[in-house]
């Protein structure tokens, strides 16, 4: 079994192979060939992941080492993969959801002249993402970490001829680089603290340091910075809405299902550190909860079908990060899993709509599309309900687990756990509200734009089949993590061996029930409010609400972009300009000026060469005088 698990090491290579084939020979491939090749590569990866999954289930974690990556004396970084419960689960999500999205893309991208480039980049992404989760050391993880960032950059700017798209990609890349900066520093500090960068070794060694040691907190905060960059958490969240410039399947895969959850994965992976650094962990939760709340509010005010989902993603990832920050690693990963399904589904649904409308993305021009697009409409409804936290759908369980964790996490108790719980609960309600708005404006009600409505048609099967599969998943996947007091919590048990231990208060069964019901109430309230505002109020109320300051803040996404522009971008550009002109006008000129002294001196010296014999003789006499005086003074009088 061990050997079979090792076989899964091929998964990223296969994806890479797909990328290389598409990248180098894509121009010679006709029709759907690129998509099929890419999908096959990912499908193979999925199969391998399954093998690994069962292998790990049977025999526990497996490590593979292919030799050294970086060496210098004691500093040794291996080139190896670590298959354990967490990583194989992530691999399954990546390859599974990835496969569906690949297949969907065949339809979605049909006819685009960059299709081979698209699939090459998508495959490359899968490869990088797999490396990220499989890596057994931080540097190798960083390889995948940056790799996915690069692919994200490429795919966001896929339609690069529009400079706005390209700039969105650029922004994503740069903001992610800030996170990478944190990741690098975190690694440096980790090495300083532990003398190794092997993830397992670090996790094992972390408890040996004092609980809450400053260096652990420091490492934790730096990893938080890294996670915030990749997972679009405050304050590095601004790139994700812009990232919607990319093709929708990309948004589904990278910016919903997989890449943005890398931060969650990172924190879960380094649980050993966070479990021993309560301050850092609490910071994580605070950041995450505030992100979730902020993003949920912003999502209300958006009009772009994808941007609403993007903000929703930020908000939902906030849930996950909050969970792992609180020490409920399984809950975070659980939400990653469920979110992968319903958010991918939402995006693909949105993609289907956009595809049907020929590129229209403004929800104000939609409405009633559910009637013309049955599958899309239905599946989107399921996803909407799932994310809103309607009972018995996947989102309900995972969200509930997170809320419970926030309430009961012992370390968090000292850092305002209750407040966080309330805030996140509120966020859950808002989620239901804005998701209802999203669904209603797109699929229900009356069509607001006749022309668009006329154009709409259901997408081809290659797109709707993945939608359906995902819809099924969105319904059923939640049952792997039923609350422990109801049934065996499969995912919690699955992950338990590899997760760091954090103490939780034990809630009584009644409290558990109360919590379950509470979240139902909140979800219902959100949905009901949505129904009241959008379905019944027929716009008037929405308009009135739209005039409140909160609403304009929501529309403006709390002005982060503007703030960053005036706080970082413009001063940064100014700084760059300043340095450039400093270099040109001060350093360069200064150095030249310094050397300019030499010719000046030369000019003076040349003046002495007057051409007069007698002056030359005088110079000689002066020399003699000096020598004679020296002889007299030193030899006679001294």
């Amino acid at each position: 079994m061990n050997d079979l698990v090792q076989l899964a090491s091929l998964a990223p290579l296969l994806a890479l192979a797909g990328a290389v084939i598409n990248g180098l020979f894509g121009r010679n491939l006709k029709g759907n060939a690129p998509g099929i090749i890419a999908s096959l590569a990912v499908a193979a990866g999925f199969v391998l992941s399954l093998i690994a999954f069962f292998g790990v289930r049977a025999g526990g974690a497996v490590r593979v080492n292919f030799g050294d990556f970086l060496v210098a004396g004691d500093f040794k970084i291996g080139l190896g993969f670590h298959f354990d419960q967490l990583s194989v689960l992530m691999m399954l999500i990546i390859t599974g959801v990835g496969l569906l999205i690949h297949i969907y893309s065949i339809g979605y991208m049909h006819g685009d002249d960059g299709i081979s480039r698209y699939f090459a980049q998508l495959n490359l992404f899968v490869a990088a993402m797999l490396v990220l989760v499989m890596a057994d050391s931080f540097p190798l993880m960083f390889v995948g970490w940056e790799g996915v960032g690069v692919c994200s950059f490429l795919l966001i700017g896929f339609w690069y001829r529009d400079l706005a798209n390209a700039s969105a990609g650029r922004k994503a890349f740069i903001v992610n680089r800030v996170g990478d900066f944190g990741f690098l520093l975190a690694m440096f500090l980790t090495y300083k603290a532990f003398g190794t960068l092997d993830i397992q070794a670090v996790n094992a060694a972390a408890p040996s340091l004092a609980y809450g040691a400053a260096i652990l907190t420091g490492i934790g905060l730096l990893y938080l910075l890294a996670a915030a960059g990749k997972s679009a958490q405050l304050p590095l969240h601004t790139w994700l809405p812009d990232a919607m410039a990319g093709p929708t399947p990309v948004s589904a895969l990278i910016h919903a299902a997989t890449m943005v959850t890398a931060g969650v994965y990172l924190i879960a992976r380094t649980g050993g550190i966070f479990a021993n650094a309560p301050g850092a962990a609490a910071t994580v939760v605070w950041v995450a909860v505030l992100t979730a709340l902020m993003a949920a509010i912003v999502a209300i005010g958006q009009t772009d079908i994808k941007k609403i989902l993007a903000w929703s993603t930020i908000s939902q990832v906030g849930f996950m990060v909050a969970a792992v920050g609180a020490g409920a690693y399984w809950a975070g990963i659980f939400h990653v899993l469920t979110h992968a399904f319903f958010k991918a589904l939402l995006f693909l649904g949105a993609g289907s709509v956009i595809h049907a409308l020929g590129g229209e993305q403004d929800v104000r021009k939609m409405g009633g599309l559910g009637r013309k697009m049955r599958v899309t409409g239905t599946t989107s409804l399921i996803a909407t309900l799932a994310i809103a936290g309607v009972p018995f759908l996947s989102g309900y369980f995972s969200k509930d687990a997170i809320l419970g964790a926030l309430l009961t996490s012992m370390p968090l108790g000292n850092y305002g756990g209750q407040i966080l719980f309330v805030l996140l609960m509120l966020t859950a309600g808002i989620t239901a509200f804005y998701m209802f708005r999203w669904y209603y404006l797109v699929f229900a009600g009356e069509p607001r734009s006749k022309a668009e409505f006329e154009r709409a048609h259901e997408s081809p099967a290659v797109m709707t089949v993945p939608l359906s599969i995902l819809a099924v998943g969105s319904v059923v996947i939640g049952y792997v993590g039923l609350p422990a007091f109801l049934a065996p919590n499969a995912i919690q048990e699955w992950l338990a061996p590899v997760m760091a231990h954090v103490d939780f208060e034990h809630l009584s069964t009644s409290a558990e029930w109360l919590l379950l019901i509470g979240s139902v109430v909140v979800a219902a309230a959100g949905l009901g409010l949505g129904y009241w505002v959008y379905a019944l109020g027929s716009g008037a109320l929405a308009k009135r609400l739209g005039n409140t300051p909160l609403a304009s803040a929501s529309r403006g996404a709390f002005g982060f972009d503007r703030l960053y522009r005036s706080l970082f971008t413009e001063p940064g550009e100014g700084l760059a300009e300043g340095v450039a002109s400093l270099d040109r006008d001060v350093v360069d000129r200064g150095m030249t000026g310094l050397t300019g002294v030499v010719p000046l001196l030369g000019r003076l010296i040349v003046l002495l060469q007057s051409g007069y014999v007698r002056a030359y003789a005088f110079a000689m006499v002066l020399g003699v005088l000096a020598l004679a005086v020296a002889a007299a003074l030193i030899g006679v009088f001294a």
Partner: protein
Amino acid sequence: MISLYVVLLPVLIALLVLLGRSSAALVRGLAFLGGVGTFALSLFLAGSEGFQGAWLPRMGVNFSLDATGAGPVLVLVAALVMIPTLLVAATRVEQNAAGFVALLLLAQAGLNGIFLSKDLIVFYVFWEATLIPGLLLLGMFGGDKRRQAALKYLVYAVAGSMLMLVSILSLKALSGAASFHITELMIATPSLSAGVQTWLFVGMAIGMVVKLPLWPLHSWLIDLNEQNHPSGAADVLGSLYKVGAFGFFAWALPLLPAGAERVAPYLLALAAVTAVYGALAAISQQHLKRFLAYGSLSHMGIIGVGLFGLHLAGLSGAIYFLAAQMLSTGGLFLVAGMLYHRRRSFMLKDYGGLAKSAPAFAGVSLFLIFAYIGVPGLSNFPGEFMALLGAFQTSPWPAAFATLAVIAAGVYGVNLYQRLFQGPTTVPTSDLSALELYVLVPFIAGVLWLGISPAPQLRQIEQQAALVTIQLERAVDAADEVPTVTLAGLTGGEK
């Protein structure tokens, strides 16, 4: 003996090229032969037997080359880079291509000598001699302001290296070493007092900092790159000839450990400043080559950070980065040359949207840009990572500051790509020609090779890096002993 041949072969080919200057085909053939031949020799370099010959025996100078440590790695990478560079020179230089090729080959010989010499004077000989081909390339084939740029280059380089020469000569005079061979010197120099070592180190450092280069002694580099021949081939040489870091690594640090320990913190600060400064300056450049020059300056800052952290991993990483940047920076300079070949301009504003009509070109360029900004999995990352990590272990704050350059690198990297290849298509451009593809393939191969499989090279580099750390430890041990030579010895003549 291979270490001697890798120095002699390029010289020989250079002379043949000059003799066969009248036939363009012959020049091209010889250029290719020279590039490939040297590369082939370099493949067998590591671990081969060294060469020893008397040179100025009574001054303690022996012509001693040896293929151990980091040298063979650098020679090999440089040889790989030189193949396409020579091809570009032989085909893209309109006037006097033979001269261009010959100068490149001579410079390559000098570089190989720098990397392989084990005698300090021989090292200096190569160090200084290699300056001349670079200067001539700039002056003979450069742009409108080439003369000013050449003068600047000359003054900076020579002023630095001459001071270095004084230190080199004093090193033996003061320590009483039997010869200038590295082993003899390493045995003898720790007996020098820390004060003396500091002065000697400062002397050597000035020469090496100029060629590293670090802020504020870098201006020559910018002008050099801007004014060099538009094919970019000479700029590739420029990126190979940043040998200051190697000088520190192979000579200054192991020979003067006590001095290094005193001076390194200041140099580390300078290096960290350089890393961020270069990256920031790169962001707002409008001229492609100046852009690359500043970016490269930033890399050199990171290399400096790795060196002056005086940590084994940092030292190894810095040298690895030095090798890697030859590929990424060199490749991008050739890309710049190819762009110029199409549009006759280096100004970024004249470009945009090229990816549409030249997808392969865009792809390769993006690949090299990613390598350039240190994306993991590509050549620059291992070195950059280890350099910063190593320095962080000993001096966290400067290293952390230098790491900021990573963010700035992201900014200038994607900015560059966007301004060249993305956006609306202006004028359609031809995609890579077959020749251009052949030129870029070695770079791609090299970038992947160094990015994915750094361990073998790192092990070779480590052998030599260990010398530095051993000497540093010896210096700490020697600190308690009574110094045999004091600073007073430096102030007066023989009485």
